[in-house]
């Protein structure tokens, strides 16, 4: 008579692998996400992470997640992490890496030549073309957004 593995063996195996898998990985949702030394907005910034960076979860502490990434252990605001790896887009890495600094060749290029030709063919008013360009130039910098969130008690500043 053939015998399968004992139920006890399978149970031990289940616990062993469950323990391994508990060290889940998450991904950074946006560029410039800060890894801090404390689970608090006032914590010192250990490093800034790029979108899509994989982090290993150590523990949850309130609305923060303790993680290990690139040999450092620190805290990231939980809503800045995603279970699925964000799409960096074809040019997304380059755009997003510098967008917070307010300039990037692609981001500043504005209306593409194809869009400009469309405007010409369809007799779009120069004022409307200028309006799209104005819209593209207007940016909220990373510092402005941080201050905006702090003043509104939003994001990691929520109480």
């Amino acid at each position, binding site marked *: 008579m053939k015998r399968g593995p004992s139920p006890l063996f399978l149970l031990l195996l289940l616990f062993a692998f469950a323990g391994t898998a508990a060290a889940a990985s998450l991904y950074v949702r946006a560029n410039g996400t800060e890894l801090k030394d404390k689970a608090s907005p006032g914590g010192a910034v250990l490093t800034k992470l790029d979108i899509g960076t994989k982090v290993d979860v150590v523990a949850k502490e309130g609305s923060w997640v303790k993680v290990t990434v690139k040999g450092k252990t620190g805290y990231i605001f939980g809503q800045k992490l995603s279970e699925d790896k964000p799409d960096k887009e074809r040019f997304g890495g380059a755009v997003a890496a510098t967008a917070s600094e307010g300039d990037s060749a692609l981001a500043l290029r*504005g209306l593409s030549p194809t869009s400009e030709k469309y405007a010409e063919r369809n007799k779009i008013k120069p004022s409307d073309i200028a309006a799209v360009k104005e819209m593209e130039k207007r940016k*909220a910098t990373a510092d402005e957004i941080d201050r905006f969130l702090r003043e509104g008690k939003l994001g990691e500043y929520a109480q």
Partner: protein
Amino acid sequence: MKIRLALMISGLIALTGCGAGKFVGGALAATGVVDERTGKAIGASDNLTNAMKPIGFEEEKSIGGAVALVALSRFGGLDPDQRLQKYVTAVGTAVAQFSDRAAIPYHFAVLGSKEPNAFACPGGYIFVTRGLIDQLNDEAELAGILGHEIAHVSEKHALKLIRKMKMLGGTAEVTAAYLDTNPDAFDKIIDETVKSLFEKGLDKDKELDADRIGVDYAHRVGYDANGLKDFLNRWAAHESDSKTMKNTHPGAKERVGLLTKSIEKMKPATGPRLAERYKTWVKDPPPPG
């Protein structure tokens, strides 16, 4: 016997690995550390990837730029209030940074039209009319509306529509070179996209998806998740005031019903409304000097 055991072990590893990952994600979502959507993302993202044949960002931006030009020409150009433009850009940028597509730059503008509505063009061009701004009570409502529009971009709703057009036309791939050298095809794509976004509206399912996902984005930032729902509740009594809003979005009552169910799952769903900040930036006259 050895083969059987090996198969059982490998099956157990697969089951344990997958189950444990979902368990951890579910636990983090349930405790509010990550959002509910992220907790369910693994399976969903696989389906999304399989369903999408990607149109690159460069092509998307060309299409979106042209659609944005039409939006400006049809809906009263830019509102002249620079403070308002700056404020809407700040709220929109904050929400976009917590979205599922934070890699691309988003652009926000208030259109001069007094008819309440909001639009999202491919490539991250987001518009809200002055008429809609005037209907809102607080920043949480604005964040919910901008979240809805950002969700259209992050979910690439218009691009999915364009992909259908492309298939109808028999074109294998929409490349930047194709768009640049086929002005008739490009104009057709823009015309069809404009009709869908500004006249007929996207599929009802896409609008309802954008409600659910957009509210989640605003909630990730920390806003009260009820913002969009509260506006729609008031708007239900005035729907006939905006023909374009009525034609391009499902009925407000249905949207409120579905949003109520989504919001019930968010714990806690409450957060700042920021009515005073909204009033200061939108309704009060600018400070002297």
